[in-house]
């Protein structure tokens, strides 16, 4: 170290093997960081495989993942619950980048996924408006559209970490109620302007066409700000499990409010106090009070690799990869630690860095084969930093169920196995 003015790419940046992020920024690795990877012996001679010699099958109308990727699926608990109640979770540990493939986007539904004929679907806007209006899907499709990349996170994501003892769960089971898509549709403000908002209106009650008629009250200010009526998800029509033929997107707000299968928007002076904004999605605090109408999903991050089930294969170089997001804005910084939060170094952020969209972060780690506790800690551009589990619990207790966003920890043992722990 003597005589160096600034760190080299492979220099340690924090304790227990975290290397400088300059590896990612400059694409350079020093010999020391790769040596373990190189000591794997020499490769087998190359052989010519059958698929190199005969033509493959022809075209298909809709592409499918390789059959070798059949384990990359959503996870959900088996019955006895009535079919379609509950959630299926995104396998975050098997995905990369920022976009969730539409077929792997988590789903939370309250009475299954309705099979909606788009020609029969209607969206009505009424209540405190000058002209109640009905829209067909075809009519919605004729408006000028907008696209934006945004995450949707269920208000109940990561609630397993409220448990007093750390549960033996993987990243999908704990944090898999998170997805990100490019959403395309019509600005809600355009349609509300067309209907003509009465001055007393403050809220919009949004309701789905599912059998549960899932319903939430949304502040009119949000509806007018950046709410989108989405017809497309990742370039194709929204998937049924994500709200086909039209869903509401409220960028950054708790998932449950992004009402799927949207059939009705009623403007009112006061919230409706629906089941899902009183009985559910309220946060019981340490005392007997509960926070109600908790809108933004606050700053958060999670390491997806390494994580439980992805066993490390011996000491050496590993990339730590994860996602960070904030319902209040853009991610400004993500720090990583390999020693349970005693020391931190900034991770490299993979662009584009967009407001209310997840950012992929990467850090270089030289695992020495000993025990380690991996953590990530995100800060957004409002200056809010992810709390530790202790800080989180100090503010609100651990009975709140929803909106858990504290720093999460994976312990790596000597065998290279990762597990969910509290530190």
């Amino acid at each position, binding site marked *: 170290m003597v005589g160096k003015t600034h760190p080299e790419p492979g220099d340690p940046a924090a304790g227990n093997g975290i290397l400088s992020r300059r590896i990612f920024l400059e694409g350079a690795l020093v010999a020391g960081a790769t040596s373990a990877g190189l000591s794997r012996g020499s490769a087998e001679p190359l052989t010519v495989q059958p698929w190199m010699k005969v033509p493959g099958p022809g075209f298909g109308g809709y592409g499918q993942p390789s059959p070798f990727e059949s384990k990359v699926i959503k996870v959900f608990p088996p019955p006895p619950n009535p079919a379609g109640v509950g959630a299926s979770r995104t396998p975050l540990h098997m995905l990369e980048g920022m976009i969730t493939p539409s077929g792997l986007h988590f789903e939370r539904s309250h009475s299954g996924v309705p099979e909606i004929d788009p020609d029969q679907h209607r969206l009505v806007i009424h209540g405190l408006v000058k002209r109640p209006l009905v829209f067909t899907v075809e009519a919605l499709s004729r408006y000028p559209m907008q696209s934006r990349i945004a995450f949707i996170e269920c208000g109940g994501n990561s609630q397993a970490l409220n448990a007093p003892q750390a549960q033996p769960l993987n990243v999908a089971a704990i944090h898999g109620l998170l997805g990100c898509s490019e959403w395309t549709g019509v600005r809600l403000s355009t349609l509300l302007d067309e209907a003509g908002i009465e001055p007393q209106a403050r809220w919009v009650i949004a309701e789905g066409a599912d059998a549960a*008629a899932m319903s939430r009250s949304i502040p009119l200010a949000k509806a007018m700000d950046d709410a989108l009526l989405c017809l497309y998800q990742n370039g194709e029509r929204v998937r049924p499990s994500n709200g086909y033929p039209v869903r509401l997107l409220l960028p950054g707000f708790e998932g449950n409010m992004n009402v799927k299968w949207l059939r009705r928007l009623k403007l009112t002076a006061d919230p409706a106090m629906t089941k899902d904004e*009183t009985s559910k999605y309220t946060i019981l605090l340490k005392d007997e009070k*509960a*926070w109600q109408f908790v809108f933004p999903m606050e700053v958060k991050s999670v390491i997806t690799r390494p994580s439980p089930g992805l066993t490390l294969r011996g000491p050496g170089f590993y990339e730590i990869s994860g996602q960070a997001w904030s319902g209040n804005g853009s991610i400004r910084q993500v720090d990583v630690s390999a020693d349970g939060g005693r020391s931190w170094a900034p991770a490299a952020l993979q662009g584009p860095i967009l407001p209310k969209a997840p950012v992929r972060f990467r850090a270089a780690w030289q695992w020495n084969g000993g025990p380690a506790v991996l953590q990530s800690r995100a800060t957004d551009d409002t200056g809010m930093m992810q709390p530790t589990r202790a800080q989180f619990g100090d503010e609100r207790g651990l*009975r709140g169920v929803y909106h858990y966003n504290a720093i999460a920890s994976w312990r790596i043992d000597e065998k290279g196995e990762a597990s969910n722990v509290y530190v």
Partner: protein
Amino acid sequence: MFTSKSVAVCVSLTSGSAALAQSPQFGQSIEPADIAAWDISIGPDGAGLPPGRGTAIEGEAIYVAKCQACHGDRGIGPSVVLAGALVGGMGTLAPDKTPIKTVGSYWPYATTLFDYVRRAMPFQESKSLTADEVYAVTAYILDLNGIVGSNDVIDAQSLPKVRMPNRDGFIPFPRNPK
């Protein structure tokens, strides 16, 4: 300052009037009466409650036939985990207790019970109960929680007046966007 402000005003005026002039109008108008079948929102003040009435005595049979299989005998001990207990849990919101959040212990408004049962229950055939049946089963669940009497008539006038034990249990989240 002066320059940038006046530019901003200009831009917003231009885009505003342009938006008005160009915004397509593809919505079809509809009379409130033709929305009625879909307008099932009930406000905490009772706005939207339909005509009809029911008592807990009348509601018991409906509950046993149409709700009990999932929500358990007298609303306790549900067989379907996600369905949750509808009755009991009083006092469990206290600090350091494990909360049992039910209609009785947690819900701030009785109108929510009518709204939700009418739109979503019974699970396999939602929206199948008559208004009288929803009032009656609502009365029954409130009675099991000790909130109304078994012969109290629950209707559009009385339901919004029912004071739920946890009515004052909710406070606003301090960090919502302005």
